């Protein structure tokens, strides 16, 4: 039964080693981009010492080499990890944090960080735990107000503000 589960799992997603290999490829590509861009700037030796690209060019090269080793190890190494990288139901949990976070950051640009934060916290509490509206409002508005007090009034660190704050003259 358990073995069957493992087999099913194996067929239904990427394993740890697979993701390891893919990541190594991505890192290798980053290394290539680094080398190319710094070659453009000049990775050699000028009259007054190394050029701007000298150091990063070599960093890129080392990155490529190390990525290659990790890639080979992940495909042919002795200690390959065949367990699934992230099962679907767990990935769903991660996305449940990640997607709202992206929407939240997007919203900051339009309504300011304080309103966006209040809505974000409220939505999170409602969707994940179905807490009572009273609690949700209290905590989300309370946290935003506290942050406003701390950053705007106490430390005078300007954060992005939107139409609501403008209404109150901030």
């Amino acid at each position, binding site marked *: 039964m358990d073995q069957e589960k493992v087999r099913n799992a194996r067929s239904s997603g990427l394993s740890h080693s697979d993701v390891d290999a893919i990541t190594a490829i991505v890192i290798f590509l980053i290394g290539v981009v680094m080398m190319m861009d710094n070659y453009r700037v000049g990775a050699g030796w000028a009259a007054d010492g190394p050029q701007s690209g000298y150091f990063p060019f070599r960093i890129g090269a080392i990155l490529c080499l190390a990525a290659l080793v990790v890639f080979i190890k992940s495909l042919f190494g002795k200690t390959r990890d065949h367990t699934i990288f992230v099962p679907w139901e767990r990935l769903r949990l991660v996305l449940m944090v990640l997607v709202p976070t992206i929407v939240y*950051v997007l919203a900051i640009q339009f309504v300011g960080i304080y309103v966006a934060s209040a809505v*974000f916290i409220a939505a999170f509490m409602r969707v994940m735990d179905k807490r009572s509206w009273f609690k949700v409002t209290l905590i989300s508005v309370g946290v935003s107000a506290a942050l406003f007090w701390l950053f705007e009034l106490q430390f005078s660190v300007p*954060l992005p503000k939107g139409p609501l704050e403008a209404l109150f003259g901030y």
Partner: protein
Amino acid sequence: MENLSALFHGFSVALTWYNGWMMLIGLVLGIVIGVLPGLGGPNGVAILLPLTFTMPPTSAIIMLSCIYWGSLFAGAITSILFNIPGETSAVATTFDGYPLAQQGKAGEALTASFTGSFIGAFVGVLLITFLAPLVSKFALKFGPPEFFAVFLLTFCSFVGTDNKAPFKTIISMMLGFGLAAIGMDTVSGELRMTFGLSGLLIGIDFLVVVIGLFGLGEILVTMEEGLAFEGKHAKINAKVVLETWKKLPKYWLTLIRSSAVGCWMGITPGGATAASFMGYGLAKRFSPNGDKFGTGELEGVIAPETAAHAAGTAALLPMLALGIPGSATAAVLLGGLMIWGLQPGPLLFIEQKDFVWGLIASMYLSNVAGLFLVLSTVPLFAAILRIPFSIIAPIIIVVCAIGAYAVHAAMLDVWFMVLFGIIGYMLKKLDYPLAPLVLAVVLGDKMEAAFRQSMIGPSGGLGIFWSNSLVGTITTLALLMLFWPVIALVWRKLKQSFV
């Protein structure tokens, strides 16, 4: 003697009402940060760094270093009561700490671990007080080649001490150097890897990287593991504390051993995590009760905590004396120094006496204050962990976003924070160490500058790194460290074939 008078001067700097207040705020914030998942030493310090821009540097570093101490103390709370290490350096504490809590001895375990931490930190501070000035005096003779060699040694020993996945350590480091190089080159003014984005002209700030990797990344990992916090309750009162303290002298050897291990691992960038495991391992090996480790031995709590705290403290020694941090948090603090307009390095001990000795004096004070603070408030902080994750998680994300934005008042940084959150999640799941990345981002520019300055010198070529006995020794040592895994392997093979 010169040091002692400087230290007393430091006490007079640190002991103002304002600084004392900052110390307390720092400690409380640090404990909160250490207890909460997703917020740790490096990340907490990074988020709060922008708040200190307007503060006097001495008060700022006192507050931030107190956050660091607080988070180190707090790591033990979650490990012992919840079996969840709040910091990676507290993983080894769970081995014996949680079994003790299950037996209803949480109070004893907590007292022992806090006291162990305190002793470890105290030894670390003593070391800083007496050794750091000597090291910095010695380092005054350093020119660019020597500094480059020391940087090289720092990074190479990361690779050498990692016997799990040295190539992943190298990748992590190189990514950090790559990130540091983005933006305008300070020497020639040329643009490197900006790809036409004007927002990248000033580069990606290390604070944004740290907040993303350690903040959002940690939240994503925690979320995936679907943690439910079910903790043991701790009863801690004066009687428990005193009774535990009576037992501690018995473990003097463990305390000394762990302190020594911790100091060593802190100065070399082995870090608090490695130190705590080593402290635990050594105690298990040499203790007469070694076989009972893992079932709830008090010694098994003291050993890793003492080592971790000693390492955490000692990590500030190279940061102060050489401008080279020994841990991720120390790296963030070093970045703070530069933002406040101080030039880290050996000159700090000469030009900024108030700052350096004020900080060192504050370490003595804050560790005493921290010990009593955690002992008296454990139940309060343990209650924080009982707040549901659905409330904690969004608040932490909001705080991370604010922290990232506040660095340069730039929206692009918040997006980078999200990006680095995803990267941090992936790297963490694939066992890439993150500390070398942070260190490389912070030190990248300085290391490159040291390299280029050495190259501009008269002799030219890489020979400069062997041009005198000092720099030659350090460079050779660095290469030895880098190839240590290979050397050890060959040595073992040779030994086998001869026996």
